[in-house]
């Protein structure tokens, strides 16, 4: 069943492709274009996979599966507008299907408990005087804060603020109305900001 839904999700244009030639008849050039262009998005896709799974091995497998499906579907289901958002949409569909497959249903895990290991590096690095390191700390802090958000918040933050997709593109990737993107993004940023403020207050008063 998951397989069938995966086909529907990833290849939802397929029946039209057999009816008209608007999506067919792609030349060899566009296929070699795919190889060239698709790899440019590897880091971005891996980042999104990490954001979804928070596990390096799972993320790598997710990326590989995404490229496999995209390569197979390319030539018939060509993203007219944006190859990158097309790849992101494929990845999220695969991930959703895997979640469903785990039978326990989607696990939108809220992390409320304090994670000791995350605090440790804050203590270690906050005392270092070097500006370069501070920049690194800053980035680490933002990344850790994003990782602590619920998945529905962290994915929308990453799609907008890290990857720069438009609301419309994000709505396409998440399969939800653009209005939902807007409101969810607002709440996500609010939570991210309060988390960062709390951490900063914590290190300052140390």
């Amino acid at each position, binding site marked *: 069943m998951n397989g069938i839904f995966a086909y529907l999700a990833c*290849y939802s244009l397929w029946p*039209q492709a057999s009816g008209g030639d608007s999506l067919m008849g792609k030349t060899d050039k566009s296929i070699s274009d795919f190889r060239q262009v698709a790899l440019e998005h590897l880091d971005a896709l891996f980042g999104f996979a990490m954001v979804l799974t928070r596990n390096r091995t799972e993320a*790598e497998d997710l990326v590989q599966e995404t490229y496999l499906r995209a390569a197979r579907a390319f*030539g018939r289901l060509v993203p007219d507008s944006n190859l990158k958002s097309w790849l992101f949409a494929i990845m999220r569909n695969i991930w959703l299907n895997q979640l469903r497959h785990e039978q326990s249903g989607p696990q939108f895990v809220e992390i409320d408990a304090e994670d000791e290991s995350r605090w440790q590096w804050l203590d270690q690095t906050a005392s270092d005087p070097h500006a370069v390191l501070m920049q690194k700390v800053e*980035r680490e802090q933002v990344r850790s804060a994003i990782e602590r958000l619920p998945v529905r918040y962290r994915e929308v933050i990453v799609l907008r603020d890290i990857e720069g997709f438009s609301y419309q593109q994000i709505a396409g990737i998440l399969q939800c109305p653009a209005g939902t993107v807007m409101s969810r993004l*607002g709440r996500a940023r609010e939570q991210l900001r309060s988390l960062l403020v709390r951490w900063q207050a914590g290190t300052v008063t140390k």
Partner: protein
Amino acid sequence: MTNTCDQIRIQMGLYLDDELRNGERDEFEAHLQSCTACHEVWEQECRFLERVRAAEPLYVASSQLRERIERNISTSSEPITASHNLRNRIQEALRPSYSPEFHPHLPRLVALTAVLLAVAFAGFWLFSMRSKPDRGLQISGPSDFALMAVDTHLRRLRGQLPLEFISDSPELISSWFAGKVSFSLKLPNYQESSRQEKLYRLEGARLVALKNDYAAYVAYKMKQSPITLVVTANSVALPSGGEEIVSKGLKFHYDSINGLKVITWSDRGLTYALVSDLEERGQQSCLVCHAGTKDRDFIEGLKITSINR
């Protein structure tokens, strides 16, 4: 804070994300020029977003992953052919429900019909999984795993799946898989153990992606015919569909897909798919390899079951 300020604060995110229309944007910017309170909020928001955006890239893919993907993309070429395959596969899956008055020239109707049929099929499939009778005689479509194995076999035939490890030793191939797949695979050595004349030979192995995991791919060759064995864990795929043949407590699922014979079965935590283009029916293609071995009675069991059907 005035009403306008409220409105401006609501639009703040939209403005920063460049999602306001021209007129709205002009009004927004005009207000920002004239209202210090809103200007202050805007500056804070900008600093916050800059800080978040400076964290890009959040993660960097490892060079191993990059190499693997590059290899995968270059081996999965000929997407036009692959797309025909895929279409055949889906059509195969949908075939039982297709009606003769099907109009291929109405793309939207086709799309709708296909979606409805797929949902109906998926429902049927789920039902058949949940309430599978012990001696099921119904023949349903091939499983995803069987389709994936056929796809793998075809890609191998087209030269798109170079072997990662070349060896004709079952022991060496088994140990090559150790640590690469999430399960332990021990290939049998029928020919050695039975001193059987060499009917088939091992060619090598590689990993193939399957769902969230790698499956083990083992290439055999008999005379000039390639034989594909794909192995994964029970937790990743289970055999289903096709014609069911039970022997010695194992249930074999026999499918014919695009002229290829596929047998899938599950044993001790692993799920197997064997693909070949041999003329013989599924169980007889086992016999071809296992003739004269102690597996003979096992194969005989298959034949008897088959005659009884």
